[in-house]
């Protein structure tokens, strides 16, 4: 649907943001045809790169007057097709609005533009002993605005919580072009009367408006870390260790598992020194005040040993700790060594069901004849199976999709959720009706109508019955 934006509209957009900041050439639009979920692709009609809130507001008003869909976009690192222009439309990319506007060290908050990269916030405040807690693996690239849209997590959410726990308030341009501030204002107290509109927008996948400025909470950096690598012969032993650590009343900063396949790939890529013959490794990071860390670490090591750990290594320096985390966070990148393509899922199960879930993933791997490495937030019960396939073999795509769907169904069956971090986007639309009743979905649609009565902001996402890209319909057919 390329006729959606007339030449006069594009000319007006150029007038608002400047000629260089409107992209319409197909070859330049290619960057914006998908996010990190690449099974479905569609070019937006045009991409607009506004430089400030006023420009966003004017662009949104113009699109509203012309009844043209708008798609807010950050860095496009999302994993579920959340920024896909399903039927075309004007994509509003916030990547020019990257400033850290103000840092209030005393009150531990920072005001940033929506396009500010996640990792920049921590870099800016680190010297004051503060940090911005949510740390998705994409943090060197992803934007705070994108984090708000998807309610991003990361390894350290086990102790520190996810994005919604760290966003005080934000400025948002509603789909009709009105600008509102929701939640705590930059110079206001943290409690705000009225409905928690801040809370309902976070995680709404860009369907309620365009977030332009964000007030984030800064957290006191831990005094000390104790980062351990537990080496196990089996995934079962590692899973049991996760449960036992939690049961012992210890809340680690992070508790991550990597199975043998992924450990081997990561080792080949980054040469951290992971054992290649271990069934699973656990990264266990304790953080907080220094005095108790030694004793807590002893308890954790004891639990690892009791569950058959072959070895528990303790990071000897900050450098070693950073190297370990770099390897973990770039794990997805190492997959290229194993397979040309992969599908990743991020379902969640109750922690106590992890062993059962891991066994099920193993069965899926055998059943569909596909390798499925696992690297995930074990402490949260948030799995990340990576289903490896080669898109040149059509029937492999089909098997990979089927395995992925079986795994998500199992998450629901075990009382969990189909997504803990990545969101529904277009990818998991079909699962919404399995996880929620018609009434539940209606209650969500009601909220959508409040913010976007026309359903014009990031359309065709989240809800069953939404339009899909033509290309994907074909693939699905091939897979059926």
């Amino acid at each position, binding site marked *: 649907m390329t006729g959606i934006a007339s030449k006069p509209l594009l000319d007006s957009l150029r007038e608002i943001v400047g000629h260089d900041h409107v992209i319409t050439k197909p070859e330049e639009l290619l960057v914006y045809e998908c996010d990190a979920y690449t099974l479905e692709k569609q070019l937006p009609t045009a991409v607009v790169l506004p430089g400030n809130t006023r420009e966003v507001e004017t662009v949104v008003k113009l699109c509203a007057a012309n009844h043209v869909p708008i798609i807010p976009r950050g860095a496009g690192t999302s994993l579920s097709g959340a920024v896909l222009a399903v039927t075309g439309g004007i994509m509003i990319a916030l990547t020019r609005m990257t400033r850290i506007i103000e840092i209030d060290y*005393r009150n531990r908050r920072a005001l940033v533009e929506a396009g500010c990269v996640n990792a920049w916030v921590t870099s800016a405040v680190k010297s004051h002993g503060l940090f911005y807690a949510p740390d998705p693996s994409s943090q060197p690239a992803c934007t705070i605005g994108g984090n708000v849209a998807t*309610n991003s*997590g990361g390894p350290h*959410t086990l102790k520190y*919580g996810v994005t*919604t726990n760290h966003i005080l308030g934000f400025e948002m341009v509603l789909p009709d072009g009105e600008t*509102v501030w*929701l939640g705590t204002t930059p*110079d206001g*107290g*943290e*409690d*705000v*009367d*009225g*409905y*928690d*509109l801040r*809370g*309902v927008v*976070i*995680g709404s996948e860009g369907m309620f408006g365009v977030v332009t400025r964000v007030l984030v909470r800064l957290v006191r950096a831990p005094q000390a870390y104790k980062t351990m690598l537990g080496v196990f012969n089996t995934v079962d032993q590692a899973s049991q260790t996760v*449960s036992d650590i*939690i*049961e012992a*009343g210890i*809340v680690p900063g992070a508790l991550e598992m990597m199975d043998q396949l992924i450990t081997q790939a990561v080792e080949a890529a980054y040469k951290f020194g992971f054992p290649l013959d271990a069934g699973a490794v656990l990264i266990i990071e304790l953080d907080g*005040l220094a*005095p*108790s860390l030694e*004793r807590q670490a002893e308890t954790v090591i004891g639990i690892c040993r009791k569950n058959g750990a072959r070895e528990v290594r303790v990071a000897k320096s900050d450098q070693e700790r950073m190297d370990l985390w770099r390897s973990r966070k770039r794990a997805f990148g190492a997959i290229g060594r194993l397979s040309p393509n992969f599908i990743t899922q991020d379902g*969640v*199960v*109750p*922690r106590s069901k992890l062993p059962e879930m891991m066994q099920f993933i193993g069965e899926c791997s055998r059943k569909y004849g596909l390798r499925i490495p696992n690297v995930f*937030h074990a402490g*949260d*019960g948030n799995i990340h199976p990576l289903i490896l396939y080669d898109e040149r073999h059509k029937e492999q795509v089909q098997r990979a999709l089927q395995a992925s769907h079986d795994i998500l169904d199992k998450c629901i069956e075990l*009382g*969990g*959720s189909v*997504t803990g*971090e*990545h*969101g*529904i986007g277009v990818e*998991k639309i079909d*699962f919404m009706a399995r*996880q*929620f*009743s018609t*009434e*539940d979905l209606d*209650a*969500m649609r009601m*909220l*959508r*109508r*409040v*913010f976007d009565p026309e359903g014009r902001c990031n359309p065709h996402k989240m809800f069953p019955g939404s339009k899909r890209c033509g290309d994907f319909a074909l693939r699905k057919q091939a897979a059926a």
Partner: protein
Amino acid sequence: MVLTASNVAEVAQTLSGIASQKITGFDLRGMNRLLEYTPEDMTVSVEAGITLAELQRQLGERGQWLPVDPPQAENLTIGALLAGNKSGPRRYGYGTIRDYLLGIKVVLADGRTIKAGGKVVKNVAGYDLCKLFVGSRGTLGVIIEATFKVLPKPETEKTVSATFPTLEALADTLEHLAVSSVVPVAVDTHNYGGTTTLVACFAGPSEDVSWQLGCARDLGFREDASFEYERAFWNSSEPARCLSVLPSKVVETLRQIEPKSYVVRAGNGIIYYRGGKEPDHPALPRELMRRIKDTYDPKHLLPELPW
């Protein structure tokens, strides 16, 4: 009328049956079961009529707790806790109830039962409707069930205080505390007993607590303390006013409003007080709030927005 019910069907029936009468309050004390508690998952599901104190008692048997401490937990139902977004001194260290709510079941004004969220600690499937109902004062639906994540109880907890002749002296210590290495779970200021007092509570592994108590002593916290002032303040029949300001502006604000009595979550900048001047009310996105109310309760059967 007060909506009184002992099961979901009664809630739905009452809502569908009323035509002209308006619901002004809720009594769900008949729905007070603990539905599911999995200590190894650190999650618990309850009916909305159970009191916070009873829930804490049951969690306590397994060494866990729901880390919120609003006043009058003995009479506070989970439904009221959520609808009022109630909090207490330890919110400085642990956050508020919306940080712990994983899932919710609500009867909407038209009698339909919906759920939002789920039972796992991380979940971004669909909009976060849980947030819509926390603090909504019963204006959008009747909360009937809730699932929370819970925490292990801290190994040790210790509360200490310092008293000050003037608000200026208090301000100095507050600033020192803000930049020190300690991580208190509560930082309160009050004038119970006629003296300006600053209270700090430390919780966690015993080594950490002792170390912090040492630091606190150097900052002037010399006396053992308790949260007795909380009980005294909230037991009054005179309603308290509330103001939320930047934590750095607590003392300045106290000087401006000249309260008769006050309890301040100094770490968070939340001032509860009686006497003194009226607080200013900041602007709210009222149009959006009104649209939400009209969408979820088109016939306005449920209580009106109090703001």
